[in-house]
């Protein structure tokens, strides 16, 4: 059974298109390709590229469901040609946004979201603000003129990344059933409580900056690994 699947996959590898770009009034895919692009990806393509719509959709790309199937059929590895296709799509995004992934002055930040054929509300993982680190955050602060915002985005990234990538995807069972997200969340609540804040928005830039430091330490302590500082878009390396 497993064998057969691999053969089928190999066939479609010939077709070989794993990455579908959308943005700038164009899209490789469309709404009819839900099986391949998932519901979200197919609709993003439709909104961005259909001549009747061409709506303001932030540029991006969809990695197909075939890659997911391949990933599980091949010991959690990716098709060889995937990396090149992703680089190509990234280059297009960079051109359209005028930003560069990992750039210290004008960094491109990314959202990474799942999208199955049918919507599964809240069931799967999302990581936002990918592309932020100690260096790129300076670019964001300079651009937005809002350090508070930048550190808020950063602490969200650390929380989501630690939870989704470093803990769940790595298969780490949290001690006492309390996941890293919960631990980090409690730290946030603690600061809010001690300052008498009701809402997250009341936290100052400095408080968030301290929180980011604390988050990183905590992640290292609990998960035994640093939150990644070096950005790479090479396949297989975080």
């Amino acid at each position, binding site marked *: 059974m497993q064998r057969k699947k691999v053969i089928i996959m190999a066939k479609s590898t010939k077709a070989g298109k794993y990455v579908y770009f959308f943005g700038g009034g164009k899209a490789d895919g469309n709404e009819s390709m839900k099986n391949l692009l998932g519901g979200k990806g197919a609709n*993003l393509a439709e909104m961005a590229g*259909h001549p009747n719509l061409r709506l303001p959709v932030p540029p991006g790309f969809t990695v197909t469901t075939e890659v*997911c199937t391949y990933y599980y059929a091949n010991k959690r590895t990716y098709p060889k040609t995937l990396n090149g296709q992703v680089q190509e799509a990234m280059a297009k995004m960079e051109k359209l946004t005028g930003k560069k992934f990992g750039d210290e002055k004008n960094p491109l930040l990314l959202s990474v*979201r*799942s999208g199955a054929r049918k919507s599964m509300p809240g069931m799967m993982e999302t990581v936002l603000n990918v592309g932020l680190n100690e260096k790129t955050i300076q670019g964001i602060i300079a651009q937005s003129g809002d350090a508070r915002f930048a550190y808020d985005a950063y602490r969200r990234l650390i929380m989501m990344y630690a939870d989704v990538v470093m803990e769940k995807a790595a298969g780490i069972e949290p001690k006492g059933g309390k996941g890293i997200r919960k631990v980090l969340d409690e730290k946030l609540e603690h600061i809010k409580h001690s300052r008498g804040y009701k809402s997250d928005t009341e936290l100052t830039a400095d408080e968030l900056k301290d929180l980011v430091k604390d988050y990183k330490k905590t992640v290292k302590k609990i998960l035994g690994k640093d939150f990644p500082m070096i950005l790479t878009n090479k396949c297989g390396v975080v």
Partner: protein
Amino acid sequence: MWGGVGAVFASWNGKRAIEYRRIEKIPHEWGTAVNVQAMVFGNMGDDCCTGVAFTRNPGNGENHFYGEYLVNAQGEDVVAGIRTPAPVNQYSKNAQSEQFVSLEKLMPAQYKELFTIQRRLEKHYKDMQDIEFTIEKGKLYMLQCRIGKRNGVAAVRMATEMHKEKLIDAKTAIMRVGPNQLVELLLPMLDPKAELLAPVIAKGLPAGPGGAKGRVVFSSADAVAWAAKGEKVILVREETSPEDVDGMHKAQAILTTKGGMTSHAALVARGWGKCCIVGCSDIEIHSEAKNFHSNNGLVIKEGDWISLNGTKGTVYEGSMALVDIDIDKNQSYKDLMKLVDKTKQIGVRANAETPRDATTAVKFGAEGIGLFRTEHMFYGEGSEAPLFQLRKMIVSKTEKERREALNGLFKYVKKDVKDTLSVMNGHPVTIRLLDPPLHEFVPHDKEKLKQLSKELGISMGMLNRRVLALHENNPMLGHRGVRLGISYPEITEMQVRAIFEAAAELNKAGKKAFPEIMVPVTVISHELRHQKEIVDRVYKEVCEKLGVKKIPYLYGTMIETPRAALRADFMANVADFFSFGTNDLTQMSFGFSRDDIGGFLPKYLDLKILPDDPFQTIDQEGIGQLIKAGTERGRVTKPNLKVGICGEHGGDPESVKFCHRIGMNYVSCSPFRVPIARLAAAQAALETPRKKK
């Protein structure tokens, strides 16, 4: 970034994702795609926001742009229910968001652009869209659009209104409502009279319509555990997350204190058509103490009963009565059913045996009664007198004794039949002759036995011996159905006489009675011939007695044994119609006792040895073949043979579609399932149209 992509793929096989797919029946091998997109920020200041909106109201189907947004926030904040969102426009305001400024007021230009876009999207997709948007420093971005989930009430309204607006054709309108979604329109609601008198202890947002009552639990795990013990529970949470899905599924209703109409709880409940109230900030949950406090100091503990009105968003203390709703007041429902009836090619009848059920059935659009169980009169209210006569008959020893008892029973049977025939004026009523094994009606308690012996004038010893003689080891395969009529022809005679007299009298009174006499549990055509002789004789006698030339009727049989299905060509020599009794047919063909499947069927379903419970939906591969062969063989003998189905399956959409495909004349189901069967029949006619004759 690759870490993120890998994490998304890994999450596909996460515990909660697998659980969700199990409930929603999504195949595991589909896999997921990953979307990588340039970030836009709704949290870069007060000229930024993020929101979720629907091109029409998903709660009631009204054609109004409806949505919520949060200033200076990221998208996840709206769905997570962390902050109470503000309304996008005046229409979307509710009790919790009244004081907030709408997007329309705050950012009029962007609102206008968004409004135009959502109209374009709906026009393009020709369906209600659920959209996510973000405004970053005054610039609007569209982050997602998809076909919006809606409850049954909204689904019916949107389908019929979009049809009227000429956005979609009739076919699309019919296909757009899931037959089981109609259940929500027929859902009971809290008794309005009781509701009027009861004080509202809290009010929240009406996220899932209908009424519900249950005992309060505060965790998903408790909801699962209590429900397993047969308790009706209402899950009360501050907010729900995907981890709660199992408990939410098991609960009668969901009540949350935080979150808006687009929160997780609202979204999930809407998909299931479950009663749900969200954002009910009038109550405060103390999860350690396992209780909640209402604004006016009332404390509701775990296990206490509460009642919810999910249509209004009101919460009441205690267990309130639930009542049925008047479907005729729902114009969209009536519009949809008009399209449905124009489209469907198979009749829909109801199983009913009282004038009240028959009236309900007609109201729900039944075109006749497909199963009138004569034994019904021996159960429940008002059954004492006829039941006593029946018992007398059962323990009779001689034909003389039996005829006497049958004479006593006659008037009850005749009245029962006549009442229902009268309500169904002109529509056919299939009356099944006495079916259950006789000993089912024998009293077991001493007092009742004593009374019986006294009235019969026989000793207790004698009575006991007669009762004992009725005992069977396997009554479902025992002395029942037509076998009774063969052993005791006078039982058939009495019933047939009652039917003919009732029909003839109604006809004489200017009504139209159309009885169909149905012989149960047959295996061979000789049984039908044997009974037909009685029917023919009694027919003549009644015609003479009442001075009528004819009484329109049909004579037929239930096909519920595999042998009868296989020998259908011979059965059709005598029968004018077949009605497949799929409960017994399934039971006898599988060799599964319907009353004992609890012991093994769950495991069968778990291991996917069987795809579905064959008593819920027709096993098309096996039982379906018997039904198909029976129908075809019967029609070889009698091309115009009327064929229907009267088991529980008659109200299951997939089974109805099957019956349509194999060319049946009608399906029959419980009165409340009639609208569902009609819609399923129309959808079947669109999916696989029959050639017009």
